[in-house]
């Protein structure tokens, strides 16, 4: 069990490290503490001397004790509103399997005013290929295998932030954004590494609510129809999200 021993040794070494880190300034720390103690003693001695002097002065007691109450500031925590969660619905063109409706969930975290991370999960049900339609009773995939499920983790960039106007009096915050990311697609009984990229338009009717129109391509390699090829699966969705 050579590997086991190696892991054990590494474990011991790693466990020791945080401890080492915490005692990194140990010697220095002790001298600091001693210095602080000496200072405190000195101050106390000075204070005693002052008190003794004041007692000697023997000032008469005050008639009215001033009651000045310091205003205490309680600092309420400021809420962050960087998370956006929502639903989307639209169409996806599954290469060779026709265009179908798709629906999904998404969540985003806005890191800066320009960049955000986006996670998406979506489903669709693939239709029949032309071959199946023309060939009569041929079924390439079972019903379960036609379930098209994907997720992706993307980085987004707000390329064109701005305002959209409705009439004379209403201005809504908006942005065109680019997206690119990686993920996986489950289709035809197999999971495939998928790259996604696209863009969208986001408009905010209120500061906590957004409406998105988004177009993305999900690209993955498949050998489902005999030859290995890259497939492009274009998706167009409309969605609504709420900021938290």
């Amino acid at each position: 069990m050579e590997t086991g021993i190696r892991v054990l040794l590494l474990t011991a070494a790693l466990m020791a490290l945080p401890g080492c880190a915490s005692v990194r300034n140990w010697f220095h720390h002790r001298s600091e503490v001693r210095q602080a103690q000496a200072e405190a003693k000195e101050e106390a001695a000075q204070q005693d001397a002052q008190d003794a002097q004041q007692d000697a002065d023997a000032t008469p007691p005050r008639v009215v004790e001033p009651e000045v109450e310091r205003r205490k500031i309680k600092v309420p925590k400021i809420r962050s509103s960087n998370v956006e969660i929502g639903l989307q619905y639209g169409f996806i063109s599954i290469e060779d399997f026709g265009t179908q409706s798709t629906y999904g969930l998404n969540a985003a975290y806005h890191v800066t005013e320009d960049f955000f991370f986006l996670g998406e999960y979506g489903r669709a049900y693939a239709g029949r290929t032309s071959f199946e339609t023309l060939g009569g009773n041929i079924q390439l995939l079972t019903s379960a295998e036609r379930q098209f499920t994907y997720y992706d983790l993307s980085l987004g960039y707000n390329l064109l932030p701005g305002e959209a106007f409705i009439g004379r009096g209403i201005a809504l915050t908006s942005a065109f954004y680019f997206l690119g990311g990686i993920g996986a697609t489950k289709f035809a009984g197999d999971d495939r590494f998928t790259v996604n990229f696209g863009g969208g338009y986001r408009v905010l009717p209120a500061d906590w609510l957004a409406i998105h129109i988004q177009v993305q391509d999900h690209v993955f390699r498949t050998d489902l129809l005999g030859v290995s090829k890259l497939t492009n699966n274009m998706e167009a969705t409309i969605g609504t999200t709420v900021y938290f």
Partner: protein
Amino acid sequence: MPQPGNPCDACVAPFAAGNAAHVRKTAAGRFSNGLAILLCLLVLATPAVSREKEYLQVFVTAPYLELRSGPGRGFPVFNVAERNESVRVLYRRTDWFKVRTEKGVEGWAAQRDMLRTVLADGTPFKFDLGDRAGFTSHNFEMGVFAGDYGGATLVSGYGSYSLNSQLAVELAVGQFLGKFDNGVTGDLGFTHVLVPEWRISPFLMLGTGLVHVSPKATLVEPSDRTEQTAYVGGGLRFYLTRRFFLRAEYKSHVVFTNRNANEKVDEWKLGFAFFF
């Protein structure tokens, strides 16, 4: 106990009444229950922006505080709060603060302008800036990785909570997609950053996890299996700008199988992460 005036009381009421009187399951009853559920969902889904509560009051010390119409550098300045005026800080989105002036005007103020405001006792208004100092010491991290897990392509994400500037608890979840098998991994462990102050900063990892492997059907061993793992690893974090950093890491996993020998799996990955 629900608070008086809690909007969910109204939603709970129809259920309570329904249970007490064993109400007939009429279409109207079902509709009202459905409506109540919908209302509850809406109340839950609506963020607390509109709820009246105590907001932080800060005072402007600069000649004026610019208020923009949106949380971005390009949005127009439509109003200002003058020196010694106070504003209420409603909430924050990225580097922008939504504030309300004494006159009731709401707008977005930039982080750098908010640094020039003070609290009622005259102390400066301090908040998390999301800069290099934040890279050294922060509460949370999240990121996305692409890499290689024992020869398979790996997609993974992680989140971590810092116990102090050096030690963090980390959860990583990944999916690997290979020629012979697919699967998912989940790891929970500690990450120890050796020198958090450095821009390129090394770290070590130690933890345990689970791996679920689904071999592709053409192989000899077609059944799925879930096994426990332990890992040690290390990597580098490279601070980019603002709240972003790159992270490259290597993990050596030992998979505790119920066969004669344990398996060893190497995981290499490179990712993009942020802290907050």
